[in-house]
């Protein structure tokens, strides 16, 4: 009899528990993988990281090697109507050559490094600073909170691009601006503005989470502020943090490219063994002067920037939809 009961119950259990319980993160990951645009974005982003890391092995030429007499060569595959100079391309230079005969394709590959490092280093800085400030301000309130909001007001009243420009302009000649071909200053400039947006979001989220019962429960069993913030509040606001960080990455890359285009980015390297040889922004600056003679000098880095920004934006959209399904299709 006993076996019969069990056997009789089993089908019901099966219909109730068709799936193993999934955590929020596994669930979100599944939603992300199903999102075609997000996966396309991820592939693009990974591809560019691959190029940035293995640049020296992928580039067919030395990015700084000057090929005299072979300047302004168009790509060999470019149709005749697109060439204004009457020069004939050389198949060994896939994207043609620049003003002094350097291979545009190799320079493009080396230039990926700057954008990808900008996608990581300033992002980490602004995330750490933004999350800590936002948590503390939201949790403790009072003076810290007031101070944060006032700082936010001031930073928001600066058009951010203008602020980058002013910082880069003022400090490029100083010793800070000399560190690492100006990369250090670039990171500082980007980070100074970027953390504020994250801090604001984290503060808002913290304000609502800290009123929840589980925080009160933790406090009643003697949990100190640090423990509550790290064990209870932070894990609960991780989704909005990931979303806002994902959206700040393309903005950082665009800002870097614009600064380079204005001649305020990092200094060009003098040897191809340096880590940063050139950036897409500086390539565009050079390309702008040769727009009629060799448009691919300008077009190639522009397409690269567009692609990488698109990749990060699609990924960010996908992360938002996966982590916060209520937000789907908005914004």
């Amino acid at each position, binding site marked *: 009899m006993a076996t019969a009961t069990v056997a009789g119950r089993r089908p019901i259990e099966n219909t109730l528990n068709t799936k193993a319980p999934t955590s929020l993160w596994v669930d979100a990951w599944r939603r992300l993988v199903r999102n075609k645009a997000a996966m396309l974005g991820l592939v693009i982003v990974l591809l560019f990281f691959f190029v940035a890391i293995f640049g020296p092995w992928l580039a067919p030429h030395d990015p700084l090697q000057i090929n005299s007499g072979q300047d302004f060569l168009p790509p060999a595959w470019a149709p005749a*109507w*697109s060439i*204004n100079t009457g020069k004939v391309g050389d198949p060994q230079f896939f994207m043609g050559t620049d003003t002094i005969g350097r291979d545009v394709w190799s320079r493009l590959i080396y230039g990926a490094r700057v954008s990808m490092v900008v996608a990581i280093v300033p992002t980490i800085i602004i995330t750490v600073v933004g999350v800590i400030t936002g948590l503390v301000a939201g949790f403790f309130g009072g003076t810290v909170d007031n101070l944060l909001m006032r700082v936010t*007001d*001031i930073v*928001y*009243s*600066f*058009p951010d*691009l*203008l602020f980058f*420009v*002013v*910082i880069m*302009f*003022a*400090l*490029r*000649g*100083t010793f800070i601006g000399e560190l690492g071909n100006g990369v250090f200053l670039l990171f500082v400039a980007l980070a100074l503005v970027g953390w504020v947006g994250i801090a604001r979001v984290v503060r808002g989220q913290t304000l609502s989470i800290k009123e929840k019962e589980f925080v009160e429960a933790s406090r009643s069993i003697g949990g100190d502020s640090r423990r509550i913030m790290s064990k209870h509040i932070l894990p609960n606001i991780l989704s909005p943090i990931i979303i806002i960080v994902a959206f700040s990455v*393309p903005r950082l890359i*665009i800002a870097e*490219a*614009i600064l380079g*285009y*204005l*001649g*305020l980015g990092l200094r060009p390297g003098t040897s191809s063994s340096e880590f940063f040889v050139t950036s897409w922004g500086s390539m*565009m600056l050079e390309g*702008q002067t040769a*727009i*009629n003679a060799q*448009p691919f000098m*300008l*077009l190639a880095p*522009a397409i690269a*920037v*567009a692609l990488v*920004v*698109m990749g990060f*934006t*699609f990924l960010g959209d996908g992360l938002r939809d996966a982590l916060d399904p209520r937000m789907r*299709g*908005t*914004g």
Partner: protein
Amino acid sequence: MARFLIRRLLWLIPVMFVVAAITFILMHAAPGGPFDKDPQQRQVDAITQKRLNAQFGLDKEMWLDFPALMQGNVVGFFDTQFFTYMIGGTVNGEWRCGFICGNMGPSFRQRGMTVQQIVLDPPEGKSPWDSKAGYSLRLGLLALIFAVVVGIPMGVISALRQNTAVDYASLFIATSGVTVPSFVMGIFLIIIFAVWFHLIPVVPRDWSDPTVWILPAVVLGFGLLAQTARLTRASMLEVMRQDYIRTARAKGLSNRMVIVRHMLKNAMIPVVTIMGPALAALVTGSFIIETMFGFPGWGRQFVLAISQRDYSMILATTLVFALLIQIANITVDLVYTFLDPRMKVS
């Protein structure tokens, strides 16, 4: 309402003061003064240097003159570079009002010109619209009009024909407008239309020809167009599902009437609110597009000032643009309360 407005406007003063102080510090952090720095410029001798510094008020203390205070000179305590620039002070023996009176200081590079003359004064016998600021404002307005005139209908049609080919096409345009940065878009369009098809000059010389305005305005407005179209679509889709739309249809209104009077009117609320900051962003963010097209506006003047190390021009531009952004933000908060009485002023 009035109290809210007054409080916001009063708060503007300390914010602008801090913005000015930060910019001032940054400008002076650059090693050397504006006259002994530029390697291209011939170095000036010590006496000329001293005269120039006096003429530009650079011989004063930067922040607060403590030695003057020690001698009992309270006025002299504030008679510094920063206060002279922002509020006013004696320069070369005569008192001059500062930034609060609209004086943006003498240009360090264009001799005998003040920054406001360079930026605001039109060429001889032309209207104020032909000044550098006028050009930038016109371009910004043109871009705004383009974004609104194309973006709103795009969003409306997209919402009315949801999930059709029209919807997907406009979503594609909107998505590319949001993802592709405007200056990259500008590069693409210049190369296609100017370099390959020779339809327009790469860098137009004559801006009185209206056709050359099209491309810069389109490039500048494209991002906003995409944003407007997406916002309009989302907002329309939400409004379409409301009960009052069903009521309007039930009482026998024509389709056109329902769309124009009931849907559009309500769906436009979020769209209208982004227009103020959008215009401010278009005017203040246009310097990269202006540079690209060689456009004779304030933004390009700003970029030129960077390469010429014209400190006063950079300082003034930053302050004015920051002020514009602030005013735009205050306007949005006000417009919100007018359009949607449910939003309470906080």
